[in-house]
């Protein structure tokens, strides 16, 4: 690995020959298409999450409709959250960051826009199929074959646009966020195609399916979400604080740790497999502490002495909240891998709590901060500061209320499950109160996502109105005849 040269510029500044305004303008339509799609899916996801959450403790709620049975709504909620909301928003931010850091206008924006449309179509097809009972039956891979093909195609188109932009960059030196984003761009097609080919298209035999499904889930959540989310953190925190990233070497440790250990983790200790597979996975899961430590040190070094600024900038607040959620969810993930504790937490509410904290608490929050920074720049229209503040507090409270009770309930459930003398019904009933509290959190998150939809939609409406007014003005302007001018 080539060591960074001593005089490598560590500042994230706009040194490009192209003006930032031009770069922003080139990203306008793709970024807005992706943000708007994500905002809609996030809202849909939180509706599904709330329905599923009420069903946790009220099993009679909407139970008599096959389309809305718990076992279909829950995968629909997770899939819309992850593919519709998180990944889509991440891709929008990634395009903008790659354009800014490369100092090049977005290449082939038309491909990115087409990709965004196809991606949304894929999510829609997948969710409808899931609700109709067409789930493929693997966690995080419930989408049926045709929806997966659409997702793959959409991602590839967006990825081509991102790679072409990077290829044409005017700033040759790579900043850490670019490593993260480029690796992530390349990661998803590989893991997604492997998993779909071997699980959905031509299924392999027996528990090899389960191994591949776990491998995919870890690569998507730990590696892809980790890489893109941390790329956003490492870009926006130094940029908005107007200082340099604390250490490029620590970022390197984060990068290698995430891709090496993250991609091997995720297979539970007690899985019905030959012992070497869970053992290796456990080792990788515990070693994931190394990149986590490097990330925390790097973040701390970067914000040191400027914490007050973090709280005053509306975008940076979201990023900081997301970073805290990342650390907590990574520690929870570590607990799930740790021998001794893992058996206690497996099969409990603790696991979905960790997923929710990672996807919503970390990734969506970080990407929301970025979207609130990017949207005014690409449209020239501000998002009202008050709306962003309300969104922040509602989301923060919602995350706290939906994740913490679920995690606590999971620990209680695990402890009681491990004592065979406690009847199973008592185990279930012991968690009910915490599940009710988490429903409250999910309701708050629905409200938060509504505010986000309203904020992004409001900007889009104003933009559309302004465009209409301009074209109307152009069309109805009094004709300037040469005679009159004379």
């Amino acid at each position, binding site marked *: *690995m*080539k060591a*960074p040269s001593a005089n490598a510029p560590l500042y994230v500044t706009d040194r490009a020959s192209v003006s930032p305004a031009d770069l922003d303008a080139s990203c306008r339509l793709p970024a807005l298409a992706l943000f708007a799609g994500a905002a809609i899916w996030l809202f849909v996801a939180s509706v599904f999450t709330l329905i599923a959450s009420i*069903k946790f403790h009220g*099993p009679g709620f909407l*139970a008599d409709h*096959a389309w809305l*049975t*718990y*076992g279909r709504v*829950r*995968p629909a909620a997770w899939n819309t959250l992850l593919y519709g909301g998180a990944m889509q928003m991440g891709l929008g931010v990634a395009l903008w960051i790659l354009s800014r850091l490369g100092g090049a206008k977005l290449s082939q924006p038309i491909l990115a826009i087409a990709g965004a449309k196809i991606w949304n179509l894929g999510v829609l097809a997948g969710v409808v199929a899931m609700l109709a009972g*067409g*789930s493929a*039956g693997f*966690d995080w891979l419930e989408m049926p074959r045709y929806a997966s093909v659409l997702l793959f195609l959409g991602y590839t188109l967006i990825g081509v646009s991102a790679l072409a932009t990077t*290829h044409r960059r005017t700033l*040759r030196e*790579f900043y850490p966020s*670019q*490593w993260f984003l*480029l*690796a992530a761009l*390349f990661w998803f097609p*590989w*893991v997604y195609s*492997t998993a779909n080919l*071997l*699980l959905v298209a031509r299924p392999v*035999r*027996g*528990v090899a*399916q*389960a*191994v*591949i499904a*776990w*491998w995919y889930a870890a690569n998507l959540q730990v590696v892809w979400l980790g890489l893109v989310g941390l790329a956003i953190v490492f870009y926006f925190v130094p940029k908005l604080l107007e200082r340099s990233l604390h250490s490029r070497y620590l970022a390197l440790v984060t990068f*290698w740790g995430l*891709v090496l250990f993250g*991609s*091997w983790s995720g297979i539970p200790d*007690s*899985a*019905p*497999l*030959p012992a070497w*597979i869970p053992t*290796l996975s456990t080792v990788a899961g515990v070693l994931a502490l190394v990149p986590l430590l490097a990330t925390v040190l790097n973040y701390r070094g970067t914000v040191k002495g400027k914490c007050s600024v973090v709280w005053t900038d509306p975008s940076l607040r979201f990023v900081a909240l997301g970073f805290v959620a990342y650390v907590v969810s990574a520690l929870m993930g570590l607990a799930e891998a740790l021998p001794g504790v893992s058996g206690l937490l*497996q*099969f*409990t*509410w603790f*696991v979905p709590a960790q997923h929710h904290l990672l996807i919503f608490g970390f990734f969506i929050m970080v990407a929301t901060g970025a979207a609130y920074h990017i949207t005014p720049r690409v449209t020239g229209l501000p998002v009202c500061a008050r709306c962003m503040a309300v969104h922040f507090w509602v989301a923060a409270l919602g995350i706290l209320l939906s994740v913490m009770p679920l995690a606590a309930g999971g620990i209680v*459930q695990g402890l009681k*499950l491990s004592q*065979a003398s406690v009847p199973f*019904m008592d185990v*279930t009933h012991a968690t*009910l109160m915490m599940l009710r509290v988490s429903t409250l959190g999910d309701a708050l998150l629905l409200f938060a996502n509504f505010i986000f939809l309203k904020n992004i939609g409001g900007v889009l409406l104003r933009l559309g109105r302004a465009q209409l007014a301009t074209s109307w003005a152009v069309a109805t302007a009094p004709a300037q005849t040469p005679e009159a001018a004379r």
Partner: protein
Amino acid sequence: MSRGPFIFLAAFFALASSWFGLVLVPQAQLGRQVESKTVPAGDIYPQARPGLAAQGREVYRANGCASCHSQQVRQDGISIGMAVVKPGTNLTELVEAILKVAPELGRNRAARLVQELPKPILTGVTRMEADKARREIAVTGAKAVVTVEPVGPDIARGWGKRRSVAADFLFDRPVMLGSQRVGPDLASIGSRAASEEWLLGHLYAPRSVTPGSTMPTYRYLFEKRRIQREPSPEALRLPEAFKPEQGFEIVPKPEAKALVAYLMSLKATAQLFETPMLLPPEPASASTNAPAATSGGTNSPTRP
């Protein structure tokens, strides 16, 4: 890390390593797995599920049953013990022998035990201790066996006799191990469910058979119809509170029957090489189960 190719190669090798380790090698090892033979009976295991049960697996998948139910029994380890199966001619001598290997029992209880054979005498000992005790009992003319029992909370809850192993899922497509236990584990529901009718009743109205259950109702798998000349033999016999109005009956749709057939086919109890167990003979069916115990010698400790 300042050039595109470096990043590409770094990501490529990291991903290739995990792809090799967690996709290719497991596929080479597990993807070619074939049926194994049970120990000691030598039957082929597993058998492919019958047609209706295979259809039921599709119902299980489509309705996301795996969202709440795992199919994966975990095991902490094994417990080695010794059980007396059959008395010899001299009961007094047998009681003395039992007291010698398990003095904490006391003479009264030992005397009662020998009346109710087969009974486990020792549990949680080493293999050598168990074997020594077995020989002590054998000299009295009684028959004793060394037992190897899988232990762990899942097994104590009656969710299975042993841990789940790769062979249990050989023919399943998709394999639905599940990730949560909002409801009980179903790896061996087929061997513990009271009857198909019980399962149907539980699907239609979970709280009619299990008060306090948090399982959703699956009424859409059933048909409510007017009773024609006489009630259908398939109609559910429900408790009063859950009955439909007068003149109507609840009949399972084909999906419900298939789902129940699938659940009844979930019986991961076969004794395999990788799950050593010599279960203590059960009192009721001692004559059928006892022979398995004498062919000892495979009681190597398992992975916890």
